[in-house]
């Protein structure tokens, strides 16, 4: 799935809130053991390099969130942040 393309659809003003909420989803996830090891390394790399609100950081945190907490993530994007086009793009991939 091309998350780098999808995050470009997210308005700048919603990125920080989205990033924070997704971070809490993954850190509190009961599915942590389902994290692919390559994705874990990518997440830690981007987290060390900078905030998870830039394109690269947001793309990886979104991918992790969809992997571990798909329903919660899609609900956050669609209901709370009113980003139905992003939800559609994720579902279409």
């Amino acid at each position, binding site marked *: 799935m091309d998350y780098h393309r999808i995050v470009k659809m997210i308005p700048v003003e919603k990125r920080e809130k989205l990033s924070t909420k997704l*971070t*809490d989803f993954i*850190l*509190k996830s009961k599915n*942590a*053991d389902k*994290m692919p090891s390559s994705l*874990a390394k990518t*997440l*830690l*790399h981007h*987290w*060390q390099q900078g905030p998870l609100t830039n394109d690269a950081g947001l793309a990886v945190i979104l991918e992790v969130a969809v992997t571990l907490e798909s329903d919660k993530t899609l609900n956050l994007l669609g209901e709370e942040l009113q980003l139905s086009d992003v939800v559609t793009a994720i579902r279409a991939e």
Partner: protein
Amino acid sequence: MVEFGIEFVPSEPYWKTLFYAIQAEKRGFNYLWITDHFNNRNVYVTLTAAALHTERIKLGPGVTNPYLINPVITAQAVASLNEMAPSRVILGIGAGDKTTLRSTGLEMQKPLTAVKECVEIVRRMVSEKSVTFEGEVFKTSDAKFFFKPKMRIPVYVGAQGPKMLELAGNIGDGVLINAGHPKDVDYAVGLVKKGVGQVGKRLTDVDVAAYTSFSVHEDLKKAAEAAVPVVAYVAAGSPDVVLQRHGINQEKARKIGEALKAGKWGEAFGSVSSEMIEAFSVCGTPEMCIERINDLLKSGISQFVVGSPIGPNVRKSIDLISERIIPEFTR
């Protein structure tokens, strides 16, 4: 000036612990301590990953013990880690806990001697070509590495009992005092002072760390709720003399211990009183935590370690500590 350390128990998948470790470095913590219990993820595997994902923060086991890990292996581990994080590696050594050791078939024999000998062997292994050591607990015969560590590692002795605290002051570059209440830390620092005095050092020559059970949140009730499970274990494991110092009913503490042993979590946690939280944790709003840290500074600590649970939401609590607490001590 006090420095801030943070402790993580590697009980969750490594990437979560690493996420918080990276956050702690970004947010201004100086020390990263990873606990060493065989039941959790391995301490050196976790530290290796942390070393590779951080640049500045000092890091080490807090604490390992000489019974489960032979001193030459501890020396090998810290020397190897030092290649990944030069001049950032620190080492915490304590006697371990009897219950955990027993579950592996080991007895805590001569803890003071074991810790003292372990510290000497580790220091010599990372600085000398070959080590022959004839101790009461440990022996080495021409033990050598096939690589050259050439390092001096700051050794912190984890201590709670009076004799270990004295020894920590005597031989340690630092001491990790397992307490967060001024009454306990005052008492402990007095013994550390005695230890440093025996070898002609001053207290300021040693990094004195209060290794605390910590929980911060804007809402006191939420901070306290998060602290309860850890406090239950601390209360149940505290010697009578410590319970008496805080006016805590020994029978109540004993019953918490029995409930924990039986897996009756509700009963155990429900019996934790506000007095126990006050005695065995640094818990509350940022302002309350600042007040407590100020009290501990008067006792002579030079490092404050934020230990489990840290807060009801670890990520938010690290941010809160960084934004509201650390600046109060670094201005």
